[in-house]
């Protein structure tokens, strides 16, 4: 009868579920995938980035972020803000214009699309006639001037997007008003540049691609002056006072032209090829910026000598006899220079150069000598080297947090001390209630520590494991630093470096103990490193050990990669995590699971061959266990044997073709020879066609013990529980394999006073074979109250209630197909949830999480957060295994997104939406980290007022003044929260605030480690298939 009682029909439980669970995708961390346009609003101090998938992202002060997505899935070609407004215009590659605005709703700003518009030409006109090349928002904020491929400039009124035909500047009109000689020499072609006079809103500069530049009087509809250059025009810059025009050209030259109403210059004041005399590539964009010292900054993109440096992505800065060509790691999408905002100021006084490259954002401080980089607080390139795994640690103790930050600050000495110059908007998000770390492992053997507590994912510290090993390439770090007299004066900037020296260095598993500062890191070539946090630099040798996982098996040959060769002797390590033990698995297969118990000083690791336990205090191997099935050749031989299977599959497919041909021939009745031949050919064609049309089919077969990779160790887990009898609990190690086997080992760890002398002992106590043989993805022990056991040292640090050791413990085994609860110590099945049999979905990731209620401060429940192969996220209750809620989160086709997902202890999670971006989601009503920010044009006015008052001589130099006018007040405001700042609080839900502060101390058992990521992640997105127009 019990089975007919369906869960979920209890109204009070339904109500409680609403208080506990809620699904939100809150924020995207990292660098936008495939950026295609850059915009900057000097008045709002906001940066806008458009992407090829049609997203627009705005960034201001740390925490101020907005995202908008076009309905069309088209690339954003240009982004420009309307001067002084909270509005921006985007141009997509389908030639449509979109108006976005930041509107204040309930105390926070929201980015929304207001309207869109496509420019239409007269009927019958070529599409190029209205193909927009340049967008110029006029300073009156009522007009947009649109330069097109036909050479015509259209005028459109905003908002409303109404084309004003009488305001259009047709190429014919310009031609008629040109003097005779200019008219003869040139046809117009497309508009390359369109700029408003910096002082006079009635003058517009129009640059045509063939080299003609005209200054057009909007009111009088006449040409004020014109300039003719002999080269194709790429871009134009108007000096701040409007008296000088700088044009750059396709041959790598730039020209300066004096503007005066009375004389018509035939030749430029100065023409120069900065990297001549050999042929150079085009200079595609140029800035000419004045300073109060007198000497201008010339900043231009490209222009490198074609033959020797044509493949570099460079931006050169020339000032006061100093010249540097910043050499970027990926294609430069666009750049801008932050300078004096007030139009009345006499000088530009540039402060920072902001460069959007394909893979990262680089900001260069132009005020500090040497032009150092500024470390961005957001838009971090997560994929500097491809991400291979990730690990999240919640609620880091302050002590460890500070030590990690201290270690990281030693690594960041080369950054500029300048404060982040893009600081528009106000973040209203509450200070994060706890400190969270996200650790990412990378292909090049590094582990990056990110501050994942708030909206901005900030790099705290970078750990490299490379120094422990000999690698092919010797550290040639000074390759980029060239001598003083080198020409061109290249300087590498940016951190994107996708090329790994040795793929074996890749990090596959990470495990950090937040209480002791022990870190275990495991990699592709079976290497397991145990590291300890040390605040001082030190030189010491790393203890090495080998774990032979094939001990009893014989006659197998590993055909995969060799193991890494460790450096003998002492190695010097920077302050931070320093390795002291290296265990290398033999055969050196990828480490597939890792667990660290800092209290017992044990580290467990598993590969496709077996698992082992290592005592890192005594530096002694405790035991190894081979999990291989003797018939599993594939696992034994290593990754290379896949070549063989490819050969096999090719052979099979050829056989299939032949068979289909033969059978189709057979069916044909015998006839005249010619006909047979023809018929044969036809049948062959038909056969091929059939084969192409043949749908995908799937074999239905039960799993057997002989399947491949059954010995692959998927999960390892330490627990202090009743493994052998119900009267005494003891330390234990649990391991789950791909073949549905769970091994349990009873451990004897000597008491602390004899820990250094007596050996740790282990003996196998149990072995469970799940009959459905699905891979075991998670093991968890629940205490007498049905709560997962706490992490090691957690109770000792008073951060968790001690587990209930009175009631009976339960073992939860999660396979890809089922959840199953067994009693302990006598393992008998108690409960199960058959997920796959019911839904056809399989568990990809599972983790215990604590869900707090948004209504009652102290109420919370422990449940399982589950991600399936269909991209659904479910919550399954503990200990009764009742499905609670289900949300679809990731597209089922997004295999790498699903593989990268990592859950936190408080019902949040991260997954990669591109190689460079993590999406953050929340299942909890209580723990929400999302941007809440306010951008106000009124606020902008307040900001710009004092600046005007302070006069031009202060300008951007304030960047290093401490504290700044508004920054001095802002942290206080942030602490006060909306209650303290009713103006900003608006209608925001105050309860969200309060609850977000009430950190709960509950913690769950260790999170399950993420799987290694798929190889396609390392695929580089360097395919500039389509030229993106990045002119202004």
């Amino acid at each position: 009868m019990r089975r007919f009682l369906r869960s979920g029909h209890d109204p009070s439980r339904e109500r409680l579920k609403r208080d506990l669970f809620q699904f939100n995708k809150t924020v995207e961390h990292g660098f936008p995938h495939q950026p295609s346009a850059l915009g900057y609003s000097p008045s709002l101090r906001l940066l806008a980035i458009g992407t090829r998938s049609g997203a627009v992202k705005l960034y201001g002060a740390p925490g101020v972020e907005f995202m908008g997505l076009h309905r069309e899935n088209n690339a954003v070609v240009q982004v420009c803000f309307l001067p002084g407004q909270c509005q921006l215009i985007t141009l997509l590659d389908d030639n449509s214009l979109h108006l976005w605005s930041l509107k204040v709703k309930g105390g926070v700003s929201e980015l929304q699309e207001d309207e869109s518009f496509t420019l239409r030409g007269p009927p019958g006109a070529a599409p190029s006639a209205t193909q927009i090349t340049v967008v110029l928002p006029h300073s009156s904020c009522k007009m947009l001037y649109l330069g097109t491929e036909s050479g015509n400039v259209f005028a459109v009124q905003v908002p409303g997007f109404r084309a004003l035909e009488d305001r259009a500047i047709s190429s014919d009109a310009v031609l008629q008003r040109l003097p005779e000689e200019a008219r003869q020499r040139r046809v117009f072609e497309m508009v390359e540049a369109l700029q408003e006079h910096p002082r006079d809103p009635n003058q517009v500069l129009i640059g045509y691609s063939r080299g003609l530049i005209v200054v057009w009087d909007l009111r009088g509809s006449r040409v004020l002056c014109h300039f003719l250059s002999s080269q194709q025009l790429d871009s134009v810059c108007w000096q701040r006072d409007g008296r000088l025009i700088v044009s750059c050209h396709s041959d790598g030259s730039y020209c300066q032209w004096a503007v005066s109403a009375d004389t018509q210059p035939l030749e430029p004041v100065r023409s120069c090829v900065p990297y001549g005399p050999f042929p150079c590539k085009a200079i595609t964009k140029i800035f000419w910026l004045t300073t109060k010292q007198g000497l201008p900054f010339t900043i231009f993109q490209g222009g490198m000598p074609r033959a020797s440096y044509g493949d570099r992505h460079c931006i050169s800065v020339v000032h006061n006899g100093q010249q540097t060509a910043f050499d970027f790691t990926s294609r430069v999408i666009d750049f801008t220079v932050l300078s004096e905002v007030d139009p009345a100021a006499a000088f530009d006084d540039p402060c920072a150069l902001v460069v959007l490259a394909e893979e990262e954002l680089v900001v260069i401080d132009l005020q500090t000598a040497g032009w150092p980089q500024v470390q961005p607080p957001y838009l971090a390139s997560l994929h500097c080297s491809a991400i291979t795994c990730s690990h999240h640690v919640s609620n880091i103790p302050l002590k460890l947090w500070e030590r990690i930050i201290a270690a990281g600050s030693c690594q960041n000495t080369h950054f500029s001390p300048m404060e982040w110059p893009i600081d528009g908007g106000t973040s209203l998000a509450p200070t994060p209630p706890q400190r969270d770390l996200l650790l990412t492992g990378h292909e090049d053997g590094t582990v990056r520590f990110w501050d994942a507590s708030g909206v901005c994912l900030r790099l705290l510290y970078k750990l490299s494991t490379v120094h422990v090993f000999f690698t092919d390439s010797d550290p040639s770090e000074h390759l980029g630093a060239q001598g003083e007299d080198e020409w061109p004066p290249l300087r590498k900037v940016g951190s994107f470096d996708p090329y790994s020296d040795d793929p074996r260095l890749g990090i596959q598993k990470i495990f950090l103990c937040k209480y002791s500062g022990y870190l275990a890191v495991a990699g592709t070539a079976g290497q397991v490193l145990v590291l300890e946090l040390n605040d001082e630099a030190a030189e010491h040798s790393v203890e090495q050990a080998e774990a032979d996982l094939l001990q009893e098996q014989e006659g197998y040959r590993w055909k995969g990669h060799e193991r890494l060769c460790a450096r003998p002797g002492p190695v010097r390590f920077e302050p931070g995590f320093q390795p002291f033990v290296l265990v290398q698995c033999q055969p050196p297969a990828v480490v597939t699971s890792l667990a660290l118990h800092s209290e017992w000083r044990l580290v467990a690791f598993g590969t496709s061959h077996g698992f082992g336990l290592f005592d890192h205090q005594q530096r002694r191997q405790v035991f190894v266990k081979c999990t291989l099935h003797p018939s599993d050749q594939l696992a034994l031989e290593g990754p290379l044997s896949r070549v063989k299977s490819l050969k096999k599959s090719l052979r099979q497919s050829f056989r299939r073709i032949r068979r289909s041909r033969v059978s189709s021939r057979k069916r044909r009745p015998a006839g005249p020879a010619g006909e047979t031949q023809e018929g044969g050919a036809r049948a062959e064609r038909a056969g091929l066609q059939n084969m192409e049309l043949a749908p995908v089919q799937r074999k239905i077969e039960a799993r057997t013990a002989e399947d491949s990779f059954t010995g692959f160790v998927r999960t390892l887990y330490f627990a202090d529980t009743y493994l052998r009898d119900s009267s005494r609990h003891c330390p234990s190690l649990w391991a789950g394999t791909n073949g549905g086997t769970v091994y349990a080992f009873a451990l004897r760890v000597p008491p602390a006073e004899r820990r250094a002398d007596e050996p740790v002992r282990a003996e196998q106590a149990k072995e469970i074979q799940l009959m459905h043989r699905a891979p075991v993805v998670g093991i968890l022990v629940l205490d007498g109250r049905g709560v997962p056991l706490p992490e090691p040292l957690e109770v000792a640090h008073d951060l968790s209630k001690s587990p209930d050791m009175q009631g009976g413990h339960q073992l939860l085994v999660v396979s890809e197909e089922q959840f199953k609860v067994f009693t302990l110590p006598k393992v008998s099945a108690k409960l199960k949830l058959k997920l796959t049999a019911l839904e056809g979905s399989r568990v990809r990731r599972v983790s215990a999480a604590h869900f707090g209620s948004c209504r009652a401060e102290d109420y919370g429940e422990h449940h399982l957060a589950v991600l399936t192969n269909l991209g659904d996220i479910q919550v399954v209750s503990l200990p009764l295994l009742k499905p609670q809620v289900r949300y679809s989160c990731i597209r089922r086709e997004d295999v790498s997104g699903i593989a990268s997902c990592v859950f936190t202890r408080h019902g949040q999670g991260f997954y990669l939406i591109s190689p460079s971006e993590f999406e953050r989601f929340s299942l909890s009503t209580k723990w929400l980290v999302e941007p809440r920010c306010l951008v106000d044009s009124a606020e902008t006015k307040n900001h710009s007022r004092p600046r005007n008052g302070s006069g031009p001589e202060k300008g951007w130099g304030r960047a290093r003044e401490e504290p700044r006018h508004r920054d001095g007040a802002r942290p206080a405001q942030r602490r006060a929260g909306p209650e303290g700042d009713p103006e900003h609080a608006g209608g925001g839900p105050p309860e969200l605030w309060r609850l977000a502060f009430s950190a709960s101390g509950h913690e769950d058992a260790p999170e399950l480690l993420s799987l290694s990521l798929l190889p396609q992640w390392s695929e580089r997105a360097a395919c500039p298939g389509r030229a993106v127009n990045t002119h202004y």
Partner: protein
Amino acid sequence: MNRSFHKSQTLRFYSCSAVEVKSKFGAEFRRFSLDRQKPGKFEDFYQLVVHTHHIANTEVTIGYADVHGDLLPINNDDNFCKAVSSANPLLRVFIQKREEAEHGLATGSLSRRRKALALREEGPRRRPHLHIGLPHDFRPVSSIIDVDILPETHRRVRLYRHGCQKPLGFYIRDGTSVRVAPQGLEKVPGIFISRLVPGGLAESTGLLAVDDEVLEVNGIEVAGKTLDQVTDMMIANSHNLIVTVKPANQRNNVLRGGRASGSSGRSSDSVASRHSLPAPAPLGLHPDDMESDEEPDVVLEGALEPRPLPRPPGSLTRINGAGPASGLSGLGREGSVLRLLSSLRSDPRHSLALPPGGVEEHGPAVTL
């Protein structure tokens, strides 16, 4: 390492020509041996058995446990030879009174298994009356179920894989099927059987065919699910797979009203339900639904050293769901033995984990 995994121990006897026979009637055991090469006639064996057990005046049926733990009949020379030649190394023989063997109703899986034990009479002991009923000396590999509640155009097939070494042996594919909708005919995506593996279980049943549309898997509709989801569902249910299909060939449908042309009639395991298609028993709908519909997991408790604490006189090896180990000491009823045997059947490792005979004997490390 658990010693029970060493195979060599049990295989050592293979070369001997003598086959050890352990015969069981009720709670009594008898041991004797046979020549592996020349086992002789069934008649002689029958006489020998009834003689050794002193039951010469009782009609009995004889069965043996094969390597998979299935109870198979010995009632003619051929299966007698097979039994002797496949003994590994012990031939375990079970004897039942004929009246007992023919009792029992086909009500559940347990009784269905017991059916397999019921042995058909042969040769000299010909019965006068005609016996009509479910076939006795065959193990069911498939059945058509729920005929009474399904539309005639549909067929619900149950494949019994337990103990069977045959692969399930079929493939499924995506396709489109035509449905009658209010607006007329419409094409909807569907899942179809695309291939039957020769010699596989699916082919041998004759109940599934290429291009049959799969409508449900164990009571769950597949509409709206992807091929991969349906594949995973079928594999997850492979121990007891129930597929509802719409056969491509509609001429062999089971007709209602007594004119049934199918081999099996109504089945008792049909349950009316809320589904659009009546579903079979709601398998695994609830986490606390620990039914015996599934083969239990095997738990080995391995320890190389003697335990410090006295342990119950139970076991080192235990099968989940098979009840407490202590209950097995009194193996008076065949039912529990059979259930035990059948629960071990499909685990290919059991021959390693449990040496044959380990059920009653005191093996080196494993007892039950």
